[in-house]
């Protein structure tokens, strides 16, 4: 019998630990497929954050390093500078990259660091139980914004891709979601381009992926996808914010 579909070589056989309905699994698979299609598994080093994706070290087939909270991009910088011919990607939650990791997020982009960073944005700190993050929406109830996020007190959600796109060294910036088959396809295209930018040595590549957290949102997996669509998509600028010509031609 002909096998027409299977697991990507970019992922190991270690079972995911993610909650039911969490979209980390989909994003993992997309990255695995991209690494396999570009044939870069053997020369890629991933950097894991602190948070739900802290165990992603075991899930990808490439070499992986675990960083301290927020520091993945600084660690990734060190790896890339030591091994410029290898591909380096950081996989971080919004709490990791957009809160404690902000300085590094800005400066890898400012330097045009030739790494790929992926932000998985579910609008909360997931691993610690659903606290308010810089990405939490106005009015959103979390364990540390029990009356809803008040922009007058704590500001509006941070749209990190928009900020990063203003920096010259960030050559590819995309904001995608994984709430529908169509968006998943677009997310994969963005991830592929983000690795191709690095292969071409053009500069820093950043992909923000809107993701769900059924457990901390207190919603079913299906309702979580609807919540993402109705509440997150209108707030965040979506699409490819910056695309270099060299990648468009590929």
């Amino acid at each position: 019998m002909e096998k027409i579909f299977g697991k990507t070589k970019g992922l190991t056989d270690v079972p995911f630990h993610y909650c039911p309905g969490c979209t980390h699994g989909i994003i993992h698979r997309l990255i695995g497929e991209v690494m396999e299609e570009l044939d870069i598994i053997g020369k890629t080093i991933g950097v894991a954050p602190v948070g739900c994706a802290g165990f992603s070290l075991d899930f990808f087939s490439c070499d992986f390093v675990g960083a301290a909270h927020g520091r993945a991009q600084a660690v990734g910088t060190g790896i890339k500078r030591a091994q410029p011919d290898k591909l380096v990607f950081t996989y971080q939650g919004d709490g990791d990259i957009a809160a404690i990791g902000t300085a590094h997020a800005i400066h890898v982009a400012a330097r045009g660091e030739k790494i790929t960073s992926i932000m998985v944005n579910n609008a909360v700190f997931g691993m610690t139980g659903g606290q308010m993050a810089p990405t939490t929406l106005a009015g959103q109830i979390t364990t540390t914004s029990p009356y809803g996020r008040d922009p007058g007190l704590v500001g509006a959600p941070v749209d990190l891709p928009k900020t990063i796109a203003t920096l010259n060294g960030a050559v590819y910036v995309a904001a995608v979601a994984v709430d529908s088959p169509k968006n998943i396809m677009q997310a994969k295209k963005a991830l592929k381009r983000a690795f191709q930018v690095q292969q071409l040595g053009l500069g820093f590549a950043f992909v923000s992926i809107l993701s769900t957290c059924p457990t901390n949102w207190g919603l079913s997996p299906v309702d979580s996808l609807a919540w993402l669509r109705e509440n997150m998509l209108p707030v965040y600028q979506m699409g490819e914010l910056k695309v270099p010509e060299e990648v468009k031609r590929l």
Partner: protein
Amino acid sequence: MKKKLIKGNEAIAEAAIKAGCKLFFGYPITPSTEIVEYLSKHLPKAGGTLLQGEDEIASINMCYGAACTGARVMTASSSPGYSLKQEGLSYLAAAELPVVVVNINRTGPGLGGLGPCQSDYFQCTKGGGHGDYRLLVLAPSKGQEMYDYTLAAFDLADKYRNPVLILADGFLGQMMEPIVLKDRPDAELPVKDWVTDGCLGRAKRKIASYSLTNEIGEQNNLYWEGKYQAIREQEQRWEEFRTDDADYLIAAYGTCARIAKTVVLQARARGIKLGLVRPITLWPFPEKAFAPYRGKVKGVLTVELNTGQMIEDVRLALECSVPVSLHRRLGGMLPHEDEVLAALIQQFNIPLDREV
């Protein structure tokens, strides 16, 4: 061999290049800045990479990443910046990554001032970051040792897969002395078969520091403890000066030890049999150096540029068997030799044979 008149900080930088350091990540802070400046100029010429991080936290984490690939890597800072590196040092120790770190101690707490100080002793030898870890800490007392210990630090880091700290002060960092730029010594070092540099042709590897299972957590800590114990047994280093017939000892490291050597000579000129024990490794603390003097000397004076930090380790090493006293200067001030000798005479009530 030719000597070169350079600052202590430049001696450290020169030694790093000689040791095969390929990457340096740093951030300017007085009085350590010459290290990053010197390497900015000279490391690229030696085929290395220098990158100025956005802060000390970025710099130490860049070191973490580079060390994961097996490259020799270094960072340098001074007290407030060294404080910022503590998180990274804890992770480096847990992930067992060989990185050489330099702390050119300035005064504190807070922003403090730029003068020579030893007030980071506790932070540098008792932890600093979270968790039960240890760094090897080497304390040079002159420019040549800034160079020599840096060479040694890279080998020790690789030998034990552990961060190694060079702890000096603004006086040693800024002072110019003639330095012999020796070559890197031959050392038998373990093969780095753990690096994450791409898994082409081999099984994937990972480097991490978490252990969410308590049982594994305990195993990890027992493993680290075993490693630290081996370092304790094998790597205690110290220097002794005129201790063979000593009635009294000075215990001092770094700049204070240098001053103390003159004090020893002055004391002996006045008939006081004084010797010096100079810890070279501050961790592991050279307990072996002090063991022979337990109950054997009349008194030990520790001379420190802090309110009394190493004195605790001296007392422990001597098992409180002899009186141990402190003479200290603070906030960037250095003690004068006469002042130290007067303190010794006064604190131990030493009768004088003759005036000089």
